[in-house]
């Protein structure tokens, strides 16, 4: 109890009416004493009270009540009083009387698991050092009970015992005995008063409160109070949306069925079913009523649903064809529509929509908040909202999407807000609130390939800053913030195989236009030096070096989701006694120009739920055979392939769409073809397609083969019909196609992890020539899998596929296969 009324001491010394709020008087503080202390220091308490001997003080007044406040704020006392011990004509003597209480040294929890203890300790952390009183005991009990109630333990009991802390005077330890008891589930839900709705339908409206029934496979059957309260709110909304405008829950009760279960009884009032009458608009100056009515899509005689009406008026709707989008995308930021029920006759309701259009707003400032790592320009340059443009909700939504596509920010927390709305000059500022997330990735793996252990170390920095490479201050722990990407990767199994690669990319080369620039280089070495000396006739050695540069830009036409990229790559192959290949010794050059025309409108990089990704690629080498005077009819393989020539075409597409609830369908089709300029030169051995398996870039690839996954089959095991190659010596084929249908469902979608499960059916095949090509004669498979995305590790995947078609000559190539994959299909890939 706080008391700032001077008490007993006062009445003896002076007449009671001399201190009055009606007549405050100024006194000099003559002295201060403290009484009631046991462990605390009196001087410190006086200091905290901010009373100084000799100061002037008005009594009664703010200063004297502040004394109580300041002391009380310390949280050390059970009671604080300020008494006046003596009052003379000009001086006042105070006594601060306090009641100390033991303080809490720690809480000792029993009766629950270790993990639970940690969770609860965290919640009770702030109680340490506080005084132990009824309030503390009550809040402790409540916090624990609430925690378990939320998890369905409705009957949890908490018993708290206090004991002195032997190590610390004036401290107590709380022994808290918790008995969770059993989880409470729902036995039966019954309804009363329902006429039009069946109990089954009504139960369906209670989304998170469900009976314990065998057919409720998914979701919780536990009774949780807060979920139940939410459900009740939604419940009436749903009835009302069906035209029962007056529907409500009359009463409901939750009562014990047995120790483990409760029954729920809900009494409802349905009321009559209503229909829309005339819908009129008033206050609309920009668009005529007839036009608004076509957008509203509500006719006379439709079932009355306020929910539906509001949705059509204020959004949001899936494809933004509601009336609010019409206005908000055209600058009418302060647009408001207020539907008023003007007349109710029998079961029909007339509605007048009162519109407020307001001025058309123009964007004045665009600000970014929360970017602690990424520089302003990286975000600002890509936005679709710029100063001077008309306000548009759609532009803001697109900008937000583009910010999340940068990959440096938490998708859920990117939050655009119009602020500083100024109706006088019709301007508005837009603030994009962002939250940085870790975007760097590390790949550390050991795998078994070709009978040997292969280790991989890869680092990807997605928000690199090259210009700060020599600026020590910008390191955290690497120069960051310019949206550039640097990745380094090394793979080796020791002496026999080594592969190092480097990629740097800058999305805005020169900083003026979104011109994508990338530089790549790699070197790869395979040999059997660990088994044979270099003089041994069995020794072989293969070295591949490559470098490339890519330039690309976003197109304005047909729309700005299109991208055109050009790359120039040089690969050099050097073979020494290399077996099982077209020639054993010599060198080979693969110099190619690639044009890639693509359109990507996926809504998210990791777990897309809508949009498409299309890519058309053409890759050509110079036609050396036209001018190099080699007689290809009699040329050796070495002469033939010193400069490789071919042309290669590829078309890939994928679509994502929501099927039902959170279920997403991914459909994908791919086709690739490689041709030659000169019949005498024939099909090039490089860059062919190898189909089958997980689709991971394997260390077996030597001739720049393009590896395409096909789950349910062993890696590279798909060979043309009639061919006798196996997965070990498959040289690749010049034609392939592949189709895939995949259903995906998210398990966890949060900043720290995204997990989804999938089921797929796919088919693909390869051919050696167009005369054999039969696009629907494919090797088929189906299966299930899961993907986990962790910000630092990238996307990890595990699939089980069953291949239905046998591959002649490879008995173990199909049937059940497990596939593990890392970091695929993140960068718009198609595997």
């Amino acid at each position, binding site marked *: 109890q706080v008391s700032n009324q001077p008490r007993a001491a006062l009445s003896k010394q002076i007449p009671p009416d001399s201190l009055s709020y009606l007549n405050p008087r100024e006194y000099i503080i003559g002295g201060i004493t403290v009484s009631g202390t046991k*462990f*605390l*220091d009196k*001087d*410190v*308490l006086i*200091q*905290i009270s*901010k009373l*100084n001997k000799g100061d002037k003080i008005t009594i009664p007044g703010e200063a004297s009540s502040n004394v109580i406040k300041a002391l009380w704020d*310390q949280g*050390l006392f059970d009671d604080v009083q300020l008494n006046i011990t003596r009052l003379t004509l000009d001086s006042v003597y105070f006594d601060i009387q306090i009641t100390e209480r033991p*303080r809490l040294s720690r809480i000792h929890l029993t009766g629950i698991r270790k993990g639970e203890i940690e969770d609860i300790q965290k919640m009770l952390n702030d109680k*340490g*050092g506080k005084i132990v009183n009824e309030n503390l005991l009550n809040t402790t009990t409540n916090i624990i009970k609430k925690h378990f109630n939320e998890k369905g333990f409705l009957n949890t009991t908490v018993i708290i015992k206090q004991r002195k802390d032997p*190590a*610390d005077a004036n401290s107590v330890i709380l022994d808290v005995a918790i008995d969770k008891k059993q989880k409470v589930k729902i036995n039966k839900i019954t309804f009363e008063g329902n006429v039009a709705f069946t109990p089954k339908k009504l139960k369906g409206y209670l989304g998170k409160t469900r009976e314990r029934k065998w057919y409720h496979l998914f979701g919780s059957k536990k009774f949780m109070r807060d979920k139940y309260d939410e459900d009740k709110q939604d419940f009436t909304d749903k009835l009302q949306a069906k035209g029962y405008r007056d529907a409500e829950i009359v009463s409901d009760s939750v009562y014990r069925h047995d120790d483990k279960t409760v029954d729920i009884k809900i009494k409802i009032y349905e009321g009559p079913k209503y229909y829309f009458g005339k819908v009129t608009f008033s206050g609309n100056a920009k668009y005529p009523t007839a036009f608004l009515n076509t957008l509203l899509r509500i006719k006379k005689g439709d079932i009355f649903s306020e929910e539906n009406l509001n949705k059509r008026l204020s959004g949001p709707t899936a494809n933004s064809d509601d009336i609010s989008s019409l206005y908000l995308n*055209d*600058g009418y930021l302060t647009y408001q529509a207020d539907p008023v029920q003007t007349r109710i006759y029998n079961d029909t309701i007339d509605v007048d929509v009162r519109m407020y259009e307001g001025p058309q707003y123009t964007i*004045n*400032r665009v600000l*970014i*908040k*929360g*970017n*602690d*790592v*990424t*520089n*302003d*320009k990286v975000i*600002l*340059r890509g936005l679709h909202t*710029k*100063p*001077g*443009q*008309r306000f*548009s909700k759609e532009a803001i939504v697109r900008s937000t999407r583009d910010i999340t596509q940068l990959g440096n920010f938490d998708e859920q927390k990117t939050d655009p807000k119009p602020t500083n709305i100024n109706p006088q000059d019709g301007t508005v500022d837009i603030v994009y609130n962002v939250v940085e997330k870790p975007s760097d990735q590390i790949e550390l793996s050991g795998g078994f390939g070709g009978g040997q252990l292969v280790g991989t170390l890869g680092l990807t920095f997605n928000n690199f800053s090259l210009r700060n490479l020599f600026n020590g201050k*910008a390191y955290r722990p690497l120069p960051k*913030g310019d949206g550039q990407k640097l990745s380094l990767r090394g793979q080796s199994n020791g002496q026999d195989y080594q592969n190092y690669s480097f990629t740097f990319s800058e999305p805005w080369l020169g*900083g*003026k*236009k979104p011109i994508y620039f990338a530089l790549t280089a790699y070197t790869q070495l395979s040999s059997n030096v660990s088994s044979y000396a270099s003089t041994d006739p069995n020794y072989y050695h293969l070295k591949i070096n490559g470098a490339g540069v890519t330039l690309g830009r976003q197109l*304005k036409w047909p729309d700005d989701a299109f991208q055109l990229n050009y790359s120039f790559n040089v690969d050099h192959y050097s073979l020494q006694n290399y077996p099982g290949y077209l020639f054993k010794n010599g060198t080979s050059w693969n110099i190619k120009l690639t044009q890639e025309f693509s359109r990507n409108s996926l809504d998210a990089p990791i777990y897309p739920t809508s949009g498409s990704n299309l890519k058309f690629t053409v890759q050509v080498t110079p036609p050396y055979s036209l001018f190099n005077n080699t007689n290809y009819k009699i040329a050796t393989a070495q002469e033939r392939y010193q400069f490789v020539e071919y042309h290669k075409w590829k078309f890939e597409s994928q679509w994502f769409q929501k099927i039902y609830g959170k279920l997403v369908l991914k459909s994908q089709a791919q086709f690739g073809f490689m041709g030659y300029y000169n019949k005498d030169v024939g099909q090039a051995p490089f860059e062919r397609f190898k189909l089958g398996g997980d689709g991971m870039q394997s260390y077996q690839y030597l001739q720049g083969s393009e590896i395409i996954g096909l789950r349910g089959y062993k890696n590279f095991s798909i060979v043309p019909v009639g061919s006798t190659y196996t997965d070990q010596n498959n040289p690749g084929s010049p034609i392939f196609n592949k189709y895939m249908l995949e259903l995906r469902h998210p398990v966890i979608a949060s900043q720290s992890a995204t997990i989804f499960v999938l089921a797929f059916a796919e088919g693909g095949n390869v051919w050696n020539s167009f005369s054999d090509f039969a696009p629907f004669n494919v090797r088929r498979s189906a299966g299930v899998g899961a993907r986990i995305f962790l910000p630092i590790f990238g996307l990890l995947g595990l699939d089980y596929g069953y291949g239905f078609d046998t591959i002649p000559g490879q008995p173990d190539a199909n049937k059940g296969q497990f596939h593990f994959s890392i970091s695929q299909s993140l960068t718009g890939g198609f595997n």
Partner: protein
Amino acid sequence: CKSKFERLKASNDNAKKYQEGIKYYHKKDFGKALELFDDLVQRYRGQSDAEELYYYYAYTNYYLKDFTSARYHFKVFADSYPNSSRTEECRYMSAYCYYLDSPNFSLDQENTQKAIDAMQLFINLYPKSERVAEASKLIQNLRDKLETKSYNNSKLYLTIGDYQSAVIAFGNSLRDYPDTKYAEEMEYLTVKAQYLYAKNSFEVKQEDRYNTAITYSQQFTEKFPTSKYLKDAEQLKKQSEQGIIATRRYLAEAATNERLYKKIQAEKYKLSPQAQQDTTTKKK
């Protein structure tokens, strides 16, 4: 077997912990000092050494470069012990921690703004303090940072070719920071952006926009008669005038040329309020 430090940490001898903590502090072993102080600050509340302990506690956080915690603890100290001889110092340090937490100009400047407010509050509270000169200097540094941010972000629009946005952004920047050191350059860049905006507009809109560029150029010449950009600004004015003549000629020709006339009508429609809102420039 536990080390001496761990045994001390586990013990309940608060006085010993306190003494050892101060020792660690003076030996600059702030990590260990912090561990001990963390335990003690709760228990020492209301006791005679609490003030000194808290002072050291705040500094320990400061030396460990945890400026966010340090700033908070300095403030708590100042609020709890308003009459202490160290209060002024702690208020200053609290503001200074904000200053140290203020990042590079191209990142979010929330802490910069808070640092300015905290420093200003310090100056208001202790106008006679010897730290006022330093505080004023720091405030100037922080304001410079905000100006640089505003200047750079405005200029970005010019760089990426959004000329109209650049004109507006420069205007806002000059309004926010009238005495900025970038004033002269930004005024000149406004002329340039406006000229480019006009030049890249549809012909029907060009004359008005060129005229605005001419006005900006004249204002610039009056304001900065000795500027190094003077020549360029006057050149832009001349080009704008030529641009107006060219546009007029083009529009006059359109009156007799049917194909051109149709094109202009189409452009006019695009610019009309009924048409899709879009930028009124030809290309980006």
